[in-house]
């Protein structure tokens, strides 16, 4: 595999009133596992159903109910760990995290504090231009998602829907290796990409299937290096957690805003309190979620309704052997095999469907040409209609057909664009359309010459002007194109015009 090398990104600094400051960011990403049923019950994980219609008695925490684990969720967690190059813990266990909230029917969340299923891993976060940050993963564990509380349907009451309660989440915890808002967003983009490639999470942030708790602290230049040496968090500032972020844009804004808030406090002689905060995009500020008195004591203890989980190495090996090609590997391969630029390869491998589409088109064709058409023409057109690659009305075969016609000189580049538009809006086989509508390029130099001779004969004044000013030759080219209904091969026209005008 092509080994791509990267430079680490430049450290971002924020200028406070008195000093320069750096940021230290860690992220806990909650990714909803793609599965049919929930982690500990047989209810559906489908989004958008009627309230409380995807709820088993277990999810509603009725008296006497007990959890039974969904094996596929375990598999998805293992798959994710393998995709993030992480250690898989063959022995793990479940703990109860106890707190009271109406969308948490049991009064506890089943999670994995002491013995998570996945250990240390890493994610390479490309920032473009040969720059990338390696972000270490500390651990991944499985846990139950909570339900949803709606607070704005009634002035005095909140409404609780337990459909989401019990859906399997993976909590992916990074080490504080991220050093700025752009890096944070890029990390989410990369993580999301890997999860979607693996098929373990659909990454739909709008639906809340992927959300992040962002831990932000500030430090003076030089302090982070001290922390790296000693692993002593004392060299870093107090961190605050901004919860439930599900927008890339807002994550960046929130980090910026929070860092400045902390800088202002510290430069003002105060201390930052460790707390949980929420980002308010309308006000452009973070605010504290819970009062200082109510420090959460989750009283974690091993869940006595579940035995420790032991998985077999052979099972893990089987999952590993069947992992799909991951983004980094696919990108390297595209660069090596198709001669693409880093940028183009990144764009094409952003999601697995686009990559598959591209590979289909590029099979037996010029990779560069295929990349150009997929990225510039197809993606551009799809974006106009707010379509996905999966909604593309142009199939890889059709696009490939258009490219073939260009490559064989049957049509010009310009005609190809018209052809593309026709195929996009009306469908059909490209060569059939070209035949039917006479779109073939006129390469017969005789016919072109004839047309050109006519124009020269009819415009002696222009000819004289053109002989003096060569730039005016373009007028003749345009006239020939008009006369041939745009079908003349532009290369041939240019050559003939130059020849005839003696240039």
């Amino acid at each position: 595999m092509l080994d791509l090398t990267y430079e680490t990104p430049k450290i971002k600094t924020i200028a406070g009133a008195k000093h320069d400051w750096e940021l230290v960011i860690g992220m806990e990403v909650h990714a909803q596992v793609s599965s049919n049923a929930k982690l500990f019950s047989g209810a559906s994980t489908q989004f958008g159903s009627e309230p409380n219609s995807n709820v088993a008695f277990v999810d509603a925490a009725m008296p006497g109910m007990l959890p039974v684990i969904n094996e596929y969720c375990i598999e998805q967690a293992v798959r994710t760990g393998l995709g993030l190059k992480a250690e898989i813990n063959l022995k793990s266990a479940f703990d109860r995290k106890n707190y009271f909230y109406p969308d948490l029917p049991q009064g506890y969340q089943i999670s994995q504090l002491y013995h998570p299923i996945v250990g240390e891993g890493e994610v390479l976060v490309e920032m473009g231009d040969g720059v990338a940050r390696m972000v270490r993963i500390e651990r991944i564990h499985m846990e139950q998602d909570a339900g949803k509380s709606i607070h704005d349907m009634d002035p005095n009451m909140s409404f609780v829907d337990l459909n989401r309660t019990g859906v399997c989440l993976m909590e992916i915890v990074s080490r504080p290796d991220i050093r700025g808002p752009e890096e944070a967003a890029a990390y989410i983009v990369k993580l999301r990409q890997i999860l979607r490639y693996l098929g373990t999470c659909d990454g739909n942030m709008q639906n809340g299937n992927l959300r992040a708790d962002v831990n932000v602290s500030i430090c003076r230049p030089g302090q982070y290096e001290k922390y790296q040496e000693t692993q002593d968090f004392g060299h870093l500032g107090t961190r605050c957690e901004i919860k439930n972020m599900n927008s890339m844009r807002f994550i960046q804004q929130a980090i910026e805003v929070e860092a400045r808030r902390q800088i202002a406090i510290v430069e003002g002689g105060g201390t930052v309190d460790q707390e949980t905060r929420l980002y308010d995009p309308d006000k452009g500020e973070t605010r504290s979620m819970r009062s200082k008195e109510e420090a959460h004591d989750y009283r974690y203890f091993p869940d006595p309704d579940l035995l420790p989980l032991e998985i077999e190495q052979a099972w893990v090996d089987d999952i590993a052997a069947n992992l799909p090609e991951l983004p980094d590997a696919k990108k390297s391969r595209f660069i090596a095999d198709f001669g693409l630029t880093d940028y183009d390869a990144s764009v094409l491998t952003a999601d697995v469907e686009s990559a598959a589409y591209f590979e289909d088109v590029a099979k037996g064709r010029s990779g560069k040409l295929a990349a150009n058409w997929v990225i510039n023409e197809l993606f551009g057109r799809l974006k106009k209609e707010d379509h996905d690659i999966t909604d593309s009305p142009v199939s890889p075969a059709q696009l490939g057909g258009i490219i073939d016609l260009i490559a064989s000189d049957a049509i010009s580049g310009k005609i190809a664009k018209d052809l593309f538009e026709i195929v996009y809006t009306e469908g059909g086989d490209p060569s059939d359309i070209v035949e039917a509508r006479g779109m073939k390029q006129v390469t017969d130099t005789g016919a072109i010459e004839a047309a050109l001779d006519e124009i020269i004969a009819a415009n002696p004044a222009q000819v004289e002007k053109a002989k003096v000013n060569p730039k005016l030759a373009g007028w003749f080219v345009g006239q020939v194109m008009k006369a041939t209904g745009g079908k003349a091969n532009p290369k041939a026209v240019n050559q003939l015009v130059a020849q005839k005008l003696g240039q």
Partner: protein
Amino acid sequence: MSIDQSTAAKVAKLARIKVEDDALPALASEFNTILGFIEQLNEVDVEGVEPMTSVTPQRLKRREDVVNDGSQQEKVLANAPDAREGFFAVPKVVE
């Protein structure tokens, strides 16, 4: 380890059980009696002993990823003190 009234009050809060102020002394006293009884455990040498996690160890049973439950909104809400429009209604929660 002795429990004073403020600790008793904190525990009640954590357990979400309202205990009137005048009941706190008695509660703290009861706690102390029980904890005093439990103190005996400190006599035991537990060096190198694993905490028991499962009484009868066996392979944790797994389920298949099939939807075979749910679709019973009525039953889920049947015993609710206040159900409205398919939701459980509770006094407003302030974040």
